[in-house]
C-alpha cells in the first residue's frame, strides 16, 4: 500500500451536516490530524455550528465548545487560563472560526488573544462569505465576487472592496507562528499544524475552504479550485515565524487567474477588463510577498 502522506487517525466522524464537497470539513479534519486527540476546539456561530450536528450528537471525537460569535479569541484565552489553573498540561486549544466570525465580528477578540499572547491556535477557515446564513458578503469576500448582498445589477459588480488581508493584520501582532494552509494541499496543511503544535504562544492559520454552493461550482471541483487558488497566486502558501516570511509552494510560472475565476458562478459576470484588474492585483501582492520573504 502506498505510504500515507498524512496521519491515518481520524478525529472527525462521518454523518456531519456539511454540503457535499465542503472545504470546511476537510480543514477541520486536517487540523485535528495535526493536533491529535487531546485537543479542545472552540467554535463560534458559523457553518461548523451546524455541520457539527444538533444535540445529542457530535461529529468530533475531541472536546468541542460553542462560544459567542464575536468571542472565539476570548474563548480560547479562557480555555487556556482554566487549563493552566487546573494543571491540565497536555492539551491543544484551538479556536476554529469562519472568515466573517474572524475578520469582521470576531476581530477584536482575536486581536486581544494575540496581544495577550494566549498559548493557543486560532484557525480561520475561509469560505469567503457568511455561508451558514446563505452567502452574504463578509470582509473576506474577494473583490468582484457575487454574494446575496453584493448582487450583480446595473452599477453593482459584486463586492466592491478588496478582500481583507487577515494574515497582515495577524502578522502585525507578531504571533509565535502564522501560516496560510489550503485543503487542496493536505501534506503542507498537516505539516504546518504539526509544527505549530510544538510552538508555544499565539498561533494563527488562514485556511482556504472552497464552498460549492457559496462560490457556485460543482462539488467535485472543490480540490481542483483549491489547487488553482494557490497556483494562480491568489492564495499563496506561506508561513511567518519570528517575523520572517517563508513561501512553502512556488511554481515556476503561476497559472492565469482567469482559469480559477471562470469555473465559479460567483465570478461569471466579470468582464475581461475586470479579470485583468484582478490579475494585476494578484501579481502585485505576490511580488510584495516575495519581497517580504527576501527580507528574511
Amino acid at each position, binding site marked *: 500500500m502506498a505510504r500515507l502522506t498524512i496521519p491515518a487517525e481520524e478525529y472527525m466522524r462521518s454523518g456531519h451536516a456539511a454540503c457535499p464537497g465542503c472545504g470546511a470539513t476537510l480543514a477541520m479534519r486536517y487540523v485535528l490530524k495535526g493536533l491529535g486527540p487531546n485537543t479542545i476546539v472552540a467554535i463560534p456561530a458559523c457553518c461548523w455550528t451546524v455541520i457539527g450536528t444538533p444535540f445529542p450528537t*457530535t461529529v468530533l471525537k*475531541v472536546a468541542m465548545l460553542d462560544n459567542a460569535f464575536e468571542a472565539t479569541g476570548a474563548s480560547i484565552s479562557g480555555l487556556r487560563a482554566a487549563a493552566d489553573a487546573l494543571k491540565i498540561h497536555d492539551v491543544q486549544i484551538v479556536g476554529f472560526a469562519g472568515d466573517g466570525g474572524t475578520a469582521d465580528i470576531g476581530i477584536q477578540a482575536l486581536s486581544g488573544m494575540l496581544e495577550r499572547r494566549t498559548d493557543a491556535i486560532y484557525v480561520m477557515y475561509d469560505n469567503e462569505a457568511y455561508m451558514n446564513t446563505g452567502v452574504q458578503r463578509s470582509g473576506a469576500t474577494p473583490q468582484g465576487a457575487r454574494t446575496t448582498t453584493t448582487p450583480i445589477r446595473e452599477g453593482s459588480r459584486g463586492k466592491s472592496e478588496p478582500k481583507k488581508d487577515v494574515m497582515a493584520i495577524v502578522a502585525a501582532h507578531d504571533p509565535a507562528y502564522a501560516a496560510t494552509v489550503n485543503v487542496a494541499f493536505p501534506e503542507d496543511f498537516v505539516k504546518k499544524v504539526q509544527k505549530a503544535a510544538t510552538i508555544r504562544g499565539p498561533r494563527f492559520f488562514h485556511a482556504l475552504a472552497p464552498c460549492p454552493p457559496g462560490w457556485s461550482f460543482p462539488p467535485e471541483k472543490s480540490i481542483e479550485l483549491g489547487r488553482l487558488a494557490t497556483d494562480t497566486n491568489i492564495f499563496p502558501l506561506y508561513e511567518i515565524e519570528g517575523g520572517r516570511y517563508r513561501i512553502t509552494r512556488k511554481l515556476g510560472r503561476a497559472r492565469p487567474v482567469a482559469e480559477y475565476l471562470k469555473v465559479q458562478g460567483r465570478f461569471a459576470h466579470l468582464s475581461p477588463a475586470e479579470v485583468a484588474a484582478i490579475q494585476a492585483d494578484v501579481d502585485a501582492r505576490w511580488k510584495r510577498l516575495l519581497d517580504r520573504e527576501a527580507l528574511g
Partner: protein
Amino acid sequence: MPLQVISGNYAQAYAAKLARVQVISAYPITPQTTIVEKLADFVASGELPAEYIKVESEHSAMQVCISAASLGARTYTASSSQGLLLMHELLHWASGIRAPIVMGVANRAIAPPLSIWTDHSDTIAQRDTGWIQYYAESNQEVLDTALMAFRLAEHDDVRLPAMITEDAFYLSHTVEPVDVPSQEQADAFLPPYKARDILRPGEAARLGSYIGPDLYMEFRYKVARAMTRVPGVMAAVEEEYERITGRNHGGPLPTYRADDADAVLITMGTATTTARSVVDALRARGEKVALAKLRVFRPLPMHELRELARTVDRIGVLDRSYTGGLVGAAYSEVAGAMFPARERPLLRNFIAGLGGRDITPPMVETMYRRLLDGSDSEVEWIGLKERKEVTVDG
C-alpha cells in the same frame, strides 16, 4: 477577624480572594476599577494564585469566564453600566450553560448622557438573563453576599451564575468597617469547586451544541426549575454562613419595624440605610411606618412579598432606575407578586436617585407622606427639579 475599614470594591475583591477563584477576567470601567486593581495586586503578590486574563472588552471578559468554567474552573469578573450592557449577550450564555460565575457589579447609570454615578438601571436591565441578583446595602453585606454567592451558584441544585451589586461610590468607593472573614472561615464555608458536565481533553463531547424546536424548551425549563430551588438553597447557605461568621443579612426581603405598620417602603441598595433612619424618626413622632429591603431581585421573593401584603395595607416601592415604560421595574415586579394576594395593599411607585442624585431623608419622608395620605398618582419621580418646586429646606 478584626474589623478593617475598606471600600465596597475591596470587599468584592476580598470575597473573590477568599473564595480562591481560579480564573479572573475583567475589563476596567469606573467605578468598578478598584476591584480589578485589587485583584491584580492579590495575583501579582502571590496571595491569590489565579490566572488573571486582562481582556480587551467586557464581552470578552464574560466569554473567558464561560470558557474557563467549561473546563471546571471557579471564575470571577466585575463590571458596571456600559460594560455590563456590552456583556448582556453572554450573561444569557452563562446561565444557559449553567456556569456558576460570580460577578461584582458597581451600579452605575446608563449613557447618554454619560454618568459615572449610581443607579440600578444597568443591573435591572439584566433581570432577564437567568442570573441570581443581589442588591447589597453595606460593604459588610457586599463581602458576605459575594462569598455566599459562590456556594449558592455552585450548589448542585442550582448551578446558576450570580451577581452582587453595590451602589457606585456610596459603597464602591466608601470605606467603612468590615469584618473580613479569615481564610480558614472561608475554607470552612466554601469547599473547592467540583464542576459537572464539563469538557475534558480526549473526551468526545460538545458543550453548548444547537437544537431544534423539539428539545430547546425542555432545557430552558431546567434553568427555571433551578431558579425555583434557589430560595431554599439560599436559606441553607445563609444559615451555614451565620454558623461560621455569626452574620445573617436577613434573607431576600428583610423588614424593619414592619410588625405593626401602616405603611412600608420597599427599597434596594444604600437607599435602605437612609430610609431606616427616616423610619426611626417618623416612628418617634408616632407614625407607624416600616421598611422592607428587596435584597434579592432574582429570583424575586414572591412568598415574602405576599406575606408583607397580608400584613400591611400601604406599600411603596422605591425604584432607583428607570427602565422605559410607565412605572419602575421593581414596582411592576412587586405589584405582580402581590396581585394574587387576597388583601391587596395600596401600591405606590417612587422613582428617585437616578444618576447619583442623593436620596435624602426629606425625600424618603415625602414618600411615606404620599403613602400615609394616599396620593392619587401611582408613580412619582421624587426629587425631580421642576419649575413649581418650592425649595424644601433640609
